[in-house]
């Protein structure tokens, strides 16, 4: 490897190494993703500086030009990194999906709670609540009764113990607009 090329290789890989350190220092790059970068840049810097090592590796694996070995090492690291990033993306996609699903489930539960006068704590019951109260009262309440001021029941929208299972579920006939629940809540 010519001296000019060596100098360029050292500058580039050292610059990359320092940039990665700086990015981690500024918390722009997480340590866990910087590790592969640091390993790669340290290896490349090392091979650029000690070209004797590079030449020995080259002849050992039958490569005539040391520069090619440097390229091969860099290429190997790039492949590893891209694979690593696809792994990370796959996991993010999965986690994103779970978040979306849980969010939709919670939103649905919140809408039902807010639209159900028998469950949502609030002032005067609405005109239609007397006929709605019995199913909720017979419903299976796992963690407390709203009428006694306990913790809000987690499963109040899923009664199964009392009457037919559908009686207390929110139906369009008794579904109130979400805004009603929000109005009642003096946030």
């Amino acid at each position: 490897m010519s001296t000019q090329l060596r100098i360029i290789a050292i500058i580039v890989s050292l610059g990359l190494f320092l940039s990665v350190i700086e990015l981690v220092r500024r918390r722009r790059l997480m340590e866990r993703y910087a590790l592969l970068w640091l390993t790669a840049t340290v290896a490349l810097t090392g091979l650029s500086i000690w070209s004797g090592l590079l030449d020995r590796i080259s002849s050992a694996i039958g490569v005539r030009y040391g520069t090619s070995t440097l390229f091969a090492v860099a290429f190997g690291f790039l492949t590893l990194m891209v694979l690593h990033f696809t792994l990370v993306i796959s996991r993010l996609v999965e986690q994103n999906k779970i978040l979306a699903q849980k969010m939709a489930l919670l939103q649905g539960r919140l809408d039902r709670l807010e639209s159900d006068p028998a469950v949502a704590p609030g002032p005067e019951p609405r005109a239609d609540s007397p006929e709605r109260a019995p199913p909720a009262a017979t419903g299976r309440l796992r963690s407390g009764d709203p009428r006694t001021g306990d913790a809000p029941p987690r499963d109040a929208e899923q009664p199964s113990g009392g009457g037919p299972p559908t009686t207390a579920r929110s139906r369009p006939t008794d579904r109130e607009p979400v805004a009603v629940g929000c109005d009642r809540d003096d946030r």
Partner: protein
Amino acid sequence: MPRQLAIVPAYNEADAIVATVDDLRANAPEFDVLVVDDGSTDDTADRARDAGADVLQLPFNLGIGGAVQAGYMYALDGDYDIAVQVDGDGQHAAEEIHALQAHADRNPGTNMVTGSRFMPCDETTDRFQSSRARRLGIRYFGRMLSTMTRQPVTDPTSGFRLCDRTAIELFARDYPHDYPEVEAILMLHAHRLTRDEVPVAMRERQGGASSIRPWHAALYMIKVTLALGIGLLRERPTVEPGDPAAVSADRGI
């Protein structure tokens, strides 16, 4: 009386969703109806709500697998014993649910009953006929799955399926992503759950466009073949009835 839920995944099905929900409420009234709106850009969710369904609104489009899984998560949360999956486009007739249900009742211990368009059946004459290329693809997957699971699979892409509690628990925790119907069959098999098929008639879709477009068909075949092949190599723990199913959802960093 068991708690029963109809899961209706829908993506931009505003034209068909009301008819689907009405059909379910009229012809399968013992089922609660849950429409999973998969990030639709039209008013699918509002129309479904007006028609009397409970609606889960996903914040963005997850694809059929994510939407259906959200439905199974809802079924698990709500302690449902039975969940039937019905397409939001009106292909599946609600009264056919009773055929699935009757088969499940006759064969206790069957974890999933699928409605098949391609089983011999005399009483139905208006059988749904799909395009030739699609039938070819379906037969290809059917044969592949039949070999893998050592059990006849005549309609691997059918999204009309009735699941018991064990299958609900499995699907709520782990459900395939991209082309879930086909892969779910292999998943059930890998978890030692049982499945069966009954002949049903399906209607033409009443609106919207099928998620499988012709020019995607080839890619679809390759992807699913790959998914099935890798699925064979995958080690999954066996789920006993009552056990929590294998967890993929809670995997951390």
